[in-house]
């Protein structure tokens, strides 16, 4: 099976896990040897990640004091305002729109992480990236570490300052546990790099401790003083690029 044998509709279902297990495996297997198929999957995954990310913002306080309160009738006023705002909106849209039709053909994504990283560039003079890992799946962890290596090598070669924070939570913290993780030596090397920091969610550590009844030992140098729910938003607010493994 080649990339052309799979429609985009089917690949959408694949990334949304809406196919049965045989079909999921078929695409998974085909993607191992087919770079074009991998790239198509990456692009769709990247779009999904970006949409999810774009609306994960802090919610402003509600004007309503309690949830029983019936809403006030301000909608009509808002709709009237829309006509005025429309003009401003169109203007702003054109101001920020950079059209480049050939860009579609220039894309070459190794995988989803790289693809997203390419597209969410915020500041090339000083790149700051979060790599978020919440899975203990070895394939996911391995892919994430490959990505970390790739990003570091790329930016070092280009002499572009960068900071990579690898934030783990849930089963993702297991990758940082000696005796549990097969990637300990590899991660130690990354921890020794000044540009890379590893974080383990303090809540996930506490939960793992409670669940397993043993002390959760992590590699030296792993930072454990905050939860992932604190670590990620505080970086996002400062414009860091978010990459989900």
């Amino acid at each position, binding site marked *: 099976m080649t990339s052309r044998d799979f429609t985009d509709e089917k690949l959408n279902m694949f990334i949304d896990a809406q196919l049965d297990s045989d079909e999921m495996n078929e695409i998974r297997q085909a993607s191992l040897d087919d770079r074009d198929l991998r790239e198509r999957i990456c692009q769709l995954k990247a779009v999904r990640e970006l949409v999810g990310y774009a*609306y*994960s913002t802090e919610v402003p306080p509600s004007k309503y004091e309690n949830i029983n309160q019936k809403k006030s009738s301000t909608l009509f006023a808002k709709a009237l305002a829309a006509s005025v705002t429309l003009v401003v*909106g169109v203007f702003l849209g054109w101001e920020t729109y950079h059209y480049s039709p050939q860009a579609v053909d*220039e894309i070459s994504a190794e995988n989803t992480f790289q693809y997203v990283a390419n597209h969410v560039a915020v500041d090339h003079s000083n790149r700051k990236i979060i790599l978020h890992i919440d899975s203990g799946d070895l394939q996911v962890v391995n892919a994430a570490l490959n990505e970390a290596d790739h990003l570091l090598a790329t930016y070092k070669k280009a002499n572009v300052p960068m900071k990579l924070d690898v934030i783990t939570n849930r089963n993702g913290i297991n990758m940082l546990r000696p005796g549990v993780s097969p990637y300990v030596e590899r991660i130690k090397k990354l921890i020794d790099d000044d540009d890379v920091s590893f974080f383990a969610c303090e809540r996930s550590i506490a939960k793992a401790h409670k669940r397993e009844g043993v002390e959760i030992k992590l590699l030296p140098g792993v930072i454990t003083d905050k939860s992932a729910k604190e670590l990620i938003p505080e970086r996002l607010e400062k414009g860091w690029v978010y990459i989900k493994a």
Partner: protein
Amino acid sequence: MKVVKNLVAAFSLKSEFAARRDKLYRIAYSWCHEPALADDLVQETIYKAIKNASRLRDINTMDSWLYRILYNCWQDFLRVKGRNIEFIEMHDEDQAGQSENYQQSQIVKRVRASVEQLPLPLREVVTLADFAGFTYAEIAEITEVPIGTVMSRLFRARQNLKQQLLEFGSDELSEFKLRRVK
């Protein structure tokens, strides 16, 4: 005793609804891109949910039930005001003031601009799938369209966004590729 049980159940449901407020707001905002309206829609949704809590048969379907109410509130707004086309062009200047740093993020701006330009039915489906994480069947139930329509809308939405985001990211991409290690 039954009265006490009912009171406890009602209180518990209210808490469950309130706990979902932020996520409801984000979805409402992704549809209308207007903070005050999103707040109104969520308030109306929770108000209706509390009022009609007895109709929620299965607690496990609470999420899709709540989003169905939100979707209906949104559709009611569009129907009553008849602003299906004009409203999609609104920009969120209020929101920029509330979270300035975050709003300045190029990623958010670019993606939101791309989502905003989608036709409403496509926008609703793609945010329910990609942000709220509903299955196709759940989205079909929330938006009251056949599952095939959900798939088709999602396909078109993602194709459109892929193209928009590639175009938006072209400058950065070209620059990045020059530095890339093979």
